[in-house]
């Protein structure tokens, strides 16, 4: 949008390789996310999208360079430290604390800040409740009793409690009804106003490209295509494989 003074990159990944044993799941993936931007990575099942996020979060070992807000993130930097630096992942499986209340789940989202002496979780929780009024209604309910959409909202809300600089969302639309998906993506777009940068991994390419500024197409562990999302949405290759009327989807 404002090419005049370009926002600084939050995350710059170059030649990232991840292997499960001898099988290489990601091969020389490079991507960049700038401040306040929503970047999406689309691609079929098994392309390595979740692997990419797990590696960036420090859950998987990787080779290659990951620069986060200017400094190098070595593969040895632990998950907890990455959380402390403002990286947050909302995993595909949500990983909620099922037997604990919605409120406690949210509170623990701010655990790292609490431990570092930043005790502003009460106010952050109000902000999260403003974004997800449904969570406020359910605040005393156990997370395991929520519906699929509410769980996704809780997972996102919990991640936001950490006040992240970079929020990584893994398939937020997975297993949700169309109306709920719409709602989730509306919130993702709204989050952009708060200044957080978002890396959005999706199979639902249409919705993802609508909300994102820039997109990458990941296929069998490699970036096959990239560009501003409105261009990608018009690209015949993307239309045929990912946006077609559904009949072509082989995943």
């Amino acid at each position: 949008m404002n090419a005049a003074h370009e926002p600084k990159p939050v995350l710059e990944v170059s030649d990232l390789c991840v292997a499960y044993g001898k099988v290489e799941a990601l091969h020389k993936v490079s991507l960049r996310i700038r401040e306040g931007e929503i970047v999406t990575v689309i691609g079929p099942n098994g392309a390595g999208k979740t692997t990419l996020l797990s590696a960036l979060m420090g859950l998987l070992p990787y080779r290659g360079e990951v620069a986060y807000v200017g400094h190098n993130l070595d593969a040895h930097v632990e998950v907890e430290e990455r959380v402390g630096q403002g990286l947050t992942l909302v995993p595909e499986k949500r990983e909620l604390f099922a037997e604990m209340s919605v409120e406690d789940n949210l509170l623990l989202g701010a655990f790292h800040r609490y431990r570092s002496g930043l005790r502003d979780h009460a106010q952050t929780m109000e902000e999260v409740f403003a974004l997800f009024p449904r969570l406020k209604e359910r605040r005393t309910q156990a997370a395991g009793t929520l519906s699929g959409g509410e769980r996704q909202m809780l997972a996102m809300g919990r991640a936001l409690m950490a006040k992240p600089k970079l929020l990584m969302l893994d398939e937020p639309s997975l297993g949700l009804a169309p109306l709920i998906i719409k709602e989730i993506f509306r919130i993702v777009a709204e989050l952009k106003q708060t200044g957080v940068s978002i890396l959005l991994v999706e199979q639902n390419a249409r919705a993802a490209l609508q909300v994102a500024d820039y997109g990458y197409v990941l296929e069998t562990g490699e970036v096959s295509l990239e560009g501003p999302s409105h261009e990608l949405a018009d690209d015949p290759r993307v239309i045929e494989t990912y946006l077609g009327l559904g009949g072509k989807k082989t995943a």
Partner: protein
Amino acid sequence: MDLQILLLLGQDGLTNGAIYALLALALVLVFAVTRVIFLPQGEFVAYGALTLAAIQAGKLPGTVWLAVILGIAVVLIDGGLALKSGNLKRLPRIVLGNLGLPLVLLGLISGLEAEALAALALPLQILLTLGIVVPLGPLLYRLVFQPIAEASSLVLLIVAVALHMTLIGLGLVFFGAEGFRTQPFSDGALEIGPLLLQHQTLWILFASAALIAVLYVLFERTVYGKALRATALNRTGARLMGISTTMAGKLSLGLAAFIGALSGVLVSPMTTLYYDSGFLIGLKGFVGAIIGGLASYPVAALGAVLVGLLESYSSFYASAFKEVIVFTLIIPVLVWRSLTSHHVEEEEE
């Protein structure tokens, strides 16, 4: 059947059951957070009791040296790692956090004359004991379990057995083969109807109830307690919130050491404890924890009280079979658990 004997046995059973309940809670906590079946739990009981006995005899307990040596080992490892990664800012915290308390206590105790140490007020002696034994928990976690935190539960169990053997051996070195008793918290007894309650019995019941209440508040009301529960519920989810598995492990073993040492301090005026007495006491707590499926705190605590009562009555009616009866209880419990556990597994997913 004599009512008075019945009551007396019940009182005995409840007292022991309260101790077993505390140990069962510690076992459930450690297992939930770290997946370790913490066999050495009983050694904390023996260490607590015998450390207090040594202090009351005016001697420097060997457990202080254990804490200092473990502390040095952790400082060398963690300090070396911090140096290697150029993270010098963490050095003071590593040294103070792991070695501070043991060194201070070593200086304090060896600085006191034997008579002065023995004459110290009992609450101070107990504080010293806890200060020596409790740091052993986090230090042992760092050295023994943290490097293999991702191993299978079977490997963790085998290592726990090895640690249990090692600690018993060290106990023999530190305290010798003879048994000790410590002074009761207060002398005298309380008469309620036909019952004569020793003050120490009341102390045990009161302290156990208070500790259970404190644990409840800790897990339900504090952020750190909730973080421990979260690690037990969903390790990946907790890590993604910045709750470090290592911190949770150290915290849970610290709590286990605290519970163990306090239990030892509480029972040592009632029974003579030897360097290896902890094992049987811990094992009875373990039976309670198994009744709770190593998952439910209230069921584990109630199960442990049941173990205490069963033990007490069987020691009167069939004293030769006392342990047999208590440990045989585990078989029907396991059968019942395995018949009903299928359902639980499905719920977890």
